[in-house]
């Protein structure tokens, strides 16, 4: 029943859009493709859907090799970032389109479209044209069209990115409910780590056309296999530094000495790259083991409930993220507290050590 990609790669001319990738997605699962723009999320989805054929490797669905099968025969659905609907069709006809092509009877079509329209609260708009609807309703129409046929794979390519904040939150809450109870494989591409964490499920992190890690979302977040994955799965960007571990201390450039935390104790002395998530550096003292880091404030971004502070120490920029409002004057000196137990240690190849 699963969708399997086996050593799939996509090259266009001399450029490799997708490097050798092997993935197996289970029915009924919610899978997130996380990566920045141009990381290859859309390319990978096109390979999964069959819109593009891979340059090498094979795609398997329900135990059958579907590598060369055109998208029309794949039984997949797709929703794009842009609100893609047929402008000359009414909302009803838009949703009914895949059913009409499949040759269903009129009564079946009416029933199915009615049901899915009710689910997405589109019933009052069925007679209207897509361009008469709001952005949120247009995207609901596109989602309805993706849900109305019982496709085995539902691909959502940043479906919420073009919506304003309020609508995005609303639809983000609804999405998992829409897929609950279906045995379809849902693939959801996003650039936002927060969105991946909110949805849970499985996450595949993508970087420059490569899947760097695939696994349950919290695990990928907590134990990134390498530095690249940690960078992809962190917003604001993860702080990194070259350090030397010396016994019970770690030494940062500029001879900053921190006590080795829980993660550092079992590893051998030597050179490492550390990753410190921004919310593990806060501008107030915490209970438990901590290390201090003094720096000159460069930028403070204060949202309603959160402070993101960029500061400079010995020519290196650090980012701190904390709850509450912590206003600092730009240029002032401030002391930040680092949760040393949560530091990630990476080896020379960028692999996670501890």
């Amino acid at each position: 029943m699963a969708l399997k990609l086996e050593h799939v790669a996509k090259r266009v001319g001399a450029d490799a859009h997708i490097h050798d990738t092997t993935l197996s997605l289970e029915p009924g699962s919610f899978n997130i493709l996380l990566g920045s723009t141009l990381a290859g999320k859309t390319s990978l989805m096109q390979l999964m859907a069959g819109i593009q054929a891979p340059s090498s490797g094979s795609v398997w669905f329900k135990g059958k090799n579907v590598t060369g099968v055109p998208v029309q025969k794949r039984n997949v659905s797709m929703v794009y970032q842009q609100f893609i609907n047929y402008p000359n069709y009414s909302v009803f006809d838009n949703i009914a389109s895949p059913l009409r092509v499949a040759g269903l009877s009129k009564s079946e079509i009416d029933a199915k479209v009615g049901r899915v329209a009710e689910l997405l609260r589109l019933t009052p708009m069925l007679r209207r044209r897509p361009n008469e609807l709001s952005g949120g309703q247009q995207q609901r129409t596109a989602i309805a069209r993706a849900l109305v046929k019982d496709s085995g794979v539902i691909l959502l390519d940043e479906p919420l990115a073009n919506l304003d904040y309020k609508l995005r939150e609303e639809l983000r809450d609804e999405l998992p409910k829409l897929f609950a109870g279906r045995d379809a494989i849902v693939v959801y591409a996003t650039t936002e780590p927060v969105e991946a964490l909110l949805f849970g499920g499985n996450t595949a992190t993508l970087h420059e056309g490569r899947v760097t890690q695939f696994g349950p979302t919290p695990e990928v977040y907590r134990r990134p296999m390498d530095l690249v994955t940690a960078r992809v799965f962190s917003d604001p960007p993860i702080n990194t530094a070259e350090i030397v571990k010396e016994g019970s201390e770690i030494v940062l450039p500029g001879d900053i000495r921190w006590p080795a935390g829980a993660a550092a104790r079992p590893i051998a002395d030597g050179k490492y790259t550390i990753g410190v998530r921004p919310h593990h550096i806060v501008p107030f003292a915490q209970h438990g083991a901590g290390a201090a880091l003094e720096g000159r404030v460069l930028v403070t971004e204060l949202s309603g409930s959160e402070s993101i502070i960029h500061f400079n120490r010995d020519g290196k920029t650090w980012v701190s993220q904390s709850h509450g409002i912590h206003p600092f004057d730009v240029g002032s000196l401030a002391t930040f507290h680092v949760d040393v137990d949560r530091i990630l240690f990476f080896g020379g190849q960028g692999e996670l050590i501890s």
Partner: protein
Amino acid sequence: MKRWTALVPTFYIVFLLLPIYWLLNMSFKTTNEILGGFSLYPHEFTFANYMTIFNDPTWYMGYVNSLSYVVINTALSVTVALPAAYAFSRYRFLGDKHLFFWLLSNRMAPPAVFALPFFQLYSAVGLFDTPIAVALAHTLFNIPLAVWILEGFMSGVPKELDETAYVDGHSFWSFFLKIFLPTIAAGIGVACFFCFMFSWVELLLAKTLTAVDAKPIAATMTRTASTSGYELGLLAAAGSLTLIPGAVVIYFVRNYIAKGFALGRV
């Protein structure tokens, strides 16, 4: 002060419409009155000029001929241009940009350059003096124009629409005819309008490639300093009638032309 500013556009519009008024004015006069002296409106109002045109085949066949080659040309140009424009807007292929520019450069040569080869070619294959000859000759500059206009409109449609249709199960032709063409209906309207207009006003090729049977109306009009002297009233009536098809066509596409300009393709 305010009244003066309103006068500027008024003066401009009057200035523009004056020749058209004068043409209509003349068409309702007798030739004697036209030659007799200056009069701002027809003193002896007459439909005789129009009656002559509608009753004399050498006159009204001019309209029939012109309209038939213009319609054939418009249908042909747009039909051929649609798949070409789709290819230019959706696919990257070897030399696509050069080819696209070369298409446009076809419009840079004066039609006179092609008059002789066309004349010889069509005479040789027996197409001379048929509306088809003129229609084919006019595709030379109308197909590039239509491709250029349609490509602009098609590129305004995201390629994700194509993909969505395929994902829904549509075949290429089902998508192209049922979804894509209605989506760019405005562009097709604009392309039709420009093909129609350029073919309608083009005189040199139309005149060179016809003799008697397929003579266009504009050629008929230039001929009529006839045996009975200058029939100015008749010519004015013919001219007035010639304005009508263009006006009718532009009425239908008036809302889309602006969109075409906005795309920078018209």
